[in-house]
């Protein structure tokens, strides 16, 4: 067939945002929020996330926690995203979220409780309206869309202030229909929701290239007709900037957006996994050169905003914070058997009282 003439209907560009390069040098003028205080705070939160992750893995090894998903190497995504929300915005996490949860005010011992087999961890004492950790991949994206609907609805019907839902998922989650259904509805209904994809290159043993043939994850936004952007997910400034911007647009009624944050899973998928079976060691080694904590640290040191002394102090402070949390975690009294029924329905139907009594009598 000779080549027919076509009429151009639409064109789309996908771009990438970065502020700090792999050596921690600024590649362009930093955004306004990037004051020394804020950058130091971001550094602190990433260091805390790393510490918690590290300890959680050890607790699992010694039988004090169940399966735990570390976010080693992905701290800039969690912390960058979590910090981009206002307090009253709603965060809708997936499960690899230690950084973001800490930013949102979820207690370390709550995170440990969840992975330690105790639902009470999901009863966040702060962040009361944030959604619980979500295990079934990608499902939280639809919940976030429903949350965004509710926020818009309450604003329009009851005059509540404008709020935004932000949600996160791994790149593996983008293979599931939920992801597209959520973006599509959010776009049609112009909902205030920001979808962030933590593209850590792996979904357990499946590499990014076997997950999808698209050149970027960000371009998947085009399917829904919403803005899609890739950010350097090892650059916490870029993550924070991109999400902040998208949140502001959503708050302003301009609808949803997709942000892909590229980074690398520098750890096993969970403590139940052995990444050595499938992750090429040279790839892991190369990824360590890009990791987010050192990157921001290098920048801060280069700007004389950080030094060994501050690092020492920080590590001491964080160690204390962690020890307190571990103590609280260890001292939690056990849940009663009846807890299984106590929260199943608002009021336990008569039909289950016999079972309840049986359980309590056990």
């Amino acid at each position, binding site marked *: 067939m000779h080549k027919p003439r076509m009429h151009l209907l639409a064109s789309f560009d996908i771009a990438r945002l970065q502020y700090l390069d792999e050596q921690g040098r600024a590649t362009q003028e930093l955004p306004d929020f990037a004051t020394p205080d804020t950058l130091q705070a971001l550094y602190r939160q990433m260091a805390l996330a790393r510490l918690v992750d590290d300890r959680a893995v050890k607790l699992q090894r010694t039988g004090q926690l169940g399966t735990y998903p570390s976010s080693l190497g992905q701290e800039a995504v969690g912390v960058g995203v979590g910090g981009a929300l206002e307090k009253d915005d709603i965060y809708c996490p997936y499960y690899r979220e230690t950084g973001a949860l800490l930013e949102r005010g979820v207690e370390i011992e709550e995170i440990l409780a969840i992975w330690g087999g105790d639902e009470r961890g999901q009863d966040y004492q702060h962040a009361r309206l944030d959604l619980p950790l979500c295990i079934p991949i990608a499902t939280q994206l639809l*919940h976030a869309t429903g949350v965004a609907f509710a926020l818009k609805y309450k604003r329009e019907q009851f005059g509540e202030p404008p709020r935004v839902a932000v949600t996160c998922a791994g790149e593996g989650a983008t293979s599931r229909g939920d992801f597209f259904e959520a973006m599509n509805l959010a776009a049609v209904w112009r909902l205030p929701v920001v979808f962030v994809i933590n593209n850590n290159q792996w979904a357990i043993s499946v590499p990014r290239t076997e997950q999808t043939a698209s050149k970027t994850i960000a371009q998947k936004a085009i399917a829904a007709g919403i803005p899609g952007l890739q950010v350097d997910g090892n650059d916490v400034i870029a993550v924070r900037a991109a999400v902040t911007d998208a949140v502001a647009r959503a708050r302003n009624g301009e609808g949803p957006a997709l942000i892909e944050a590229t980074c690398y899973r520098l750890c096993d998928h969970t403590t139940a996994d052995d990444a050595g079976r499938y992750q090429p060691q040279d790839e892991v080694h190369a990824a360590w050169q890009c990791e987010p904590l050192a990157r921001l640290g290098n920048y801060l040191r280069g700007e004389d905003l950080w030094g060994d002394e501050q690092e020492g102090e920080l590590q001491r402070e964080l160690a204390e914070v962690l020890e307190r949390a571990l103590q609280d975690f260890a001292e939690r009294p056990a849940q009663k058997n009846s807890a299984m029924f*106590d929260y*199943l329905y608002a009021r336990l139907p008569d039909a289950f009282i016999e079972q309840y009594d049986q359980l309590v009598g056990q």
Partner: protein
Amino acid sequence: MPEITLVEAVTQALAYELQADPTVLVYGQDVGVNGGVFRATDGLQKKFGRERVLDTPLAENMIGGIAVGMAAMGLRPVAEFQFMGFIYPGLDHILSHAARYRNRTRGRLSCPIVYRAPYGGGIHAPEHHSESTEALFAHIPGLRVVVPSSPARAYGLLLAAIRDPDPVVFLEPKRIYRAVRQEVPDSGEALPLDRCFVLREGTDVTLIAWGASLKETLRAADKLAEDGIEAEVIDPATLKPLDIHAIIDSLEKTHRCVVVHEAARFGGLGAEIIAQINDYAFDLLEAPVQRVTGYDTVMPYYRLEDRYLPGVEQILAAVREVLDYPNGGRP
């Protein structure tokens, strides 16, 4: 007061609660401008606006999932699946999240959602439009499953479902959407979500049925009465939680029981009812409970659907079985 059909009673309940509670909203495929393919939401968008009665894109998994987020933020979504045959893509969110959110968060967040769907066969519809898989939902901890069988019960039970603080799967027997008309005062009065309805009193045999099958069941009871056999007819209506005690009370009188449902037999709710009778009324029974149900086949295309659906004759035959059962045959 005009008499209304079951589907109109659904509309009336939705309208009442949309009016009474500003956190209630209705969404689904074609529920807005079109008023629903069965007209269950007829006129609601005009009355309550496009912000509260919304047409969605075509995605049942989405319909199931967004309700969780809406409800967790304090809204009371009423989501429609266009037919029960299309609810399955939504099952994951219903089972994994809606039914578990309160439990997962130790009561911090909850899911006061109603998932509505027209259900059952008998209207000569295409494949997948005649499903009766209530048993799948009734097995899920944390859910309620409700099936109304008259305009008044549709109204009262739907109000209760919307007001209930937990998720309810509300299945509307579409074969009787327009079968009878009844005066249904728009009083806003809800019916309890955990009580059987005794539709006819009797002393000789207990017939248990719900939804559209009650039509044949009540007709069978009429025929039995002609022969002097008084059947008690019970509509559990809230299939989960099941009010087994009303059934046991009836068995105290009748000692004999037939369960009727359109769904496939194996693992249908007839089995659970028999199991609970076994639990609580073993000594009351004078004959094995009979099940009159759909076959363990796929609901056939419509030319054969009448052969699939439990009919009056089959119910009568089952009643004869239980009445004729040789007494005291136990070892």
